[in-house]
């Protein structure tokens, strides 16, 4: 029983769930939707077990570190976080169709990690040997995951509102009929960001606390820090836009999507394209 076996199960489950969700949208059969959700749960449990086993494997090698030490581990943890947020939203609001827009994302992250990222367990460099690493990474990624769900919901919103306007307000049929109403999608977008924003805030704060503890500066305008602040600015703008006429709906959805684009840049782009203190994170 190795972690890689369970990572394979995770990837397979996310793929099957994604396909079944699409079948659900076309067949409009609630049972199919239930099965898709069930498979998502199976994947999530496998993902959890895999991360736990990897933790154990690192300890067996003599490295006392949480499985959040390199890009591979962060990507599979990101997939896990996305499922966590999605399944919590599913338990609370039960809009099955959202799965069709979230599971492809989780699957894409898993398949990328497994196909092209280095999965060897390497020991941490001294700068990363701290409990702060765990707090910082967990808060950031739960925030990112909530933004991922918000982005999926925003895409659904734009697709649906576009079609509804094209058919001059009359209810749209086909797959789109399975989407929650635009009002609900707009609200779900807001709710996901309401979870993500405080988590991102905590992530930035734990990062600052750690930086201060390790280097004596809580903020140094390093590109990664700055990008996390850019993401924070965008979602802060989004939250204020909710209370302003003319900024709800379409513009809010676009803000949410650009917020997630900035999130992805903060997560990957900074490490791949820019230089700075976080460059060892990739």
């Amino acid at each position, binding site marked *: 029983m190795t972690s890689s076996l369970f990572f394979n199960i995770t990837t397979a489950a996310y793929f099957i769930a994604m396909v079944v969700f699409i079948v659900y949208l076309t067949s409009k059969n609630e049972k199919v939707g239930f099965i898709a959700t069930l498979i998502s749960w199976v994947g999530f449990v496998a993902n959890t077990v895999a991360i736990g086993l990897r933790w154990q494997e690192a300890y067996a090698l003599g490295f006392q570190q949480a499985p959040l030490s390199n890009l591979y581990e962060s990507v599979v943890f990101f997939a896990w976080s996305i499922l966590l947020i999605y399944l919590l939203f599913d338990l609370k609001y039960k809009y099955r169709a959202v799965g069709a827009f979230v599971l492809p994302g989780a699957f894409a992250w898993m398949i990328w990690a497994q196909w092209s990222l280095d999965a060897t367990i390497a020991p941490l460099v001294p700068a990363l040997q701290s409990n702060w690493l765990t707090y910082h990474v967990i808060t950031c990624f739960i925030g990112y995951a909530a933004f991922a769900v918000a982005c999926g919901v925003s895409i659904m919103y734009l697709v649906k509102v576009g079609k509804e306007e094209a058919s001059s307000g009359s209810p749209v049929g086909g797959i789109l009929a399975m989407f929650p109403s635009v009002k609900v999608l707009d609200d779900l977008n807001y709710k996901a960001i309401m979870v993500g924003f405080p988590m991102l805030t905590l992530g930035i*704060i734990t990062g600052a606390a750690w930086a201060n503890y390790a280097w004596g500066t809580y903020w140094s305008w390093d*590109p990664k820090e700055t*990008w996390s602040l850019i993401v924070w600015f*965008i979602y802060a703008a989004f939250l*204020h836009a909710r209370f302003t006429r003319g900024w709800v709906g379409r513009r809010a959805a676009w803000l949410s999507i650009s917020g997630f684009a900035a999130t992805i840049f903060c997560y990957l782009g900074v490490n791949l394209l*820019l230089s700075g203190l976080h460059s060892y994170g990739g």
Partner: protein
Amino acid sequence: MDNKSEIQTERAKGFVTDRIWDFFCSLKLAIGTLILLALTSIIGTVIEQGKTPEEMAAKHGWNLEFLNFLDKSINAFDMYHSWWFLSLMGLFAVNLICCSIKRFPHVWKTVNEPKLVGAEGLFRTLSNVEEVVVQKGSIDEVRDKAVAFLGGKFVAPRVTEQDGTIYLYAEKGAWSRFGVYVTHASILIIFIGAAIGNVWGYKAFVNIVEGSAVDQVWPRGGKEPIKLDFAVRCDNFDVEFYDGSQRPKEFSSDLVVLENGQEVLKKKIEVNDPLTYKGITFYQSSYGPAGDATFRFRIRERATGQTIEATARQGEHVPLPGGASFAVTNFAESYDRFGPAVQMHVNTPGGRHGNPFIVLQNYPDFDAQRGGEYIFSLLGYQQRFYTGLQVAKDPGVWVVWLGCFLMVIGSCGAFFLSHRRLWVTIQPLTKGVGVKLGGSAHRNQPAFALFFDSLRKDLNATLSGN
């Protein structure tokens, strides 16, 4: 000037100042500033801060003229401290303050002077309302039942009697209305903390050679050292590598704080575990060799078999028997996987340089295979290290943490809690007693509607006596 036009000018003035005030309070300004801050912040992540246009142009092959232009026009190489970026931050702060000043009194009033009386007009504004007519029992009995009911299901209400009608008012989470203002205030507190650190604190560095002490540190970007009123000595520096690799596992320094020559504090610092004394913190940040290393060799002359031992500093020419000499030119603590290694050469008695060769400490017989006149074995070496420390003094940091703490508390209040209010009006009717229940939440209405629905059913059951 006649009175009329004077009044008109006054009005116009008022009009203009109102407009300016409204502008600074507006959400549109908040959204605009946030988006502008997000967009402009990108510049400093692409252009490496603290570098020069020449360095950037050389590194990336970018147009030097354009980089010079960015440097001169928008201070792009130190943009987060430029006048325009700080002004944008200032505008953000002014916006925060103005909108809070504008809205806060109203919220304060809502929380501190709640509407205890659920008048007809108020009920018309509520979307959650229920009316019950109780046939049996006096108005006092109904009141007691309703008070007990709210106390059990929600929270004990406040009771007001007016003209024979009884009004109950119960609320929960009123202070969550302050969440937004706590969050706004927390941002200002963080700004203040950052300003305190900038004015009264510093960031510096110092290198201490093993065995020596320093009492001054070098500020970043400054020329004059900062004098400390104590000294710091480094007794020992250690670096540990992961087995069989050059990946450092941990490096640490044994530091001693001295006041007037007396040892007052001792600590082994590591990366992620600094030492703090009198508000000044020392962080393990780098290390390196201090001065030249000294090497001990055993040398065998191939022709005679004679063996000698010799000590050499790096770069020093040491005589060999027979008039020749040797010198160490380079040293690596870990050469590939072979461990400590030196690069050296032998000079002929005439002073001509021989070819350089490598001697490995872990393989004492390796050099014999070279076939040289002299066979070298490296017995050991001594290398003193210096430890590189970041030094920081930041009296504002606790203000920043207070701000961060308030931000977390405030945003939790602002996002996850809501002010829920219930009004009950109990009045005698011609037949029986009329009870009206109404409620509102300032956030998350769908959840409140569900709560209200179950409350409504329970109230019906309670009042009808079941």
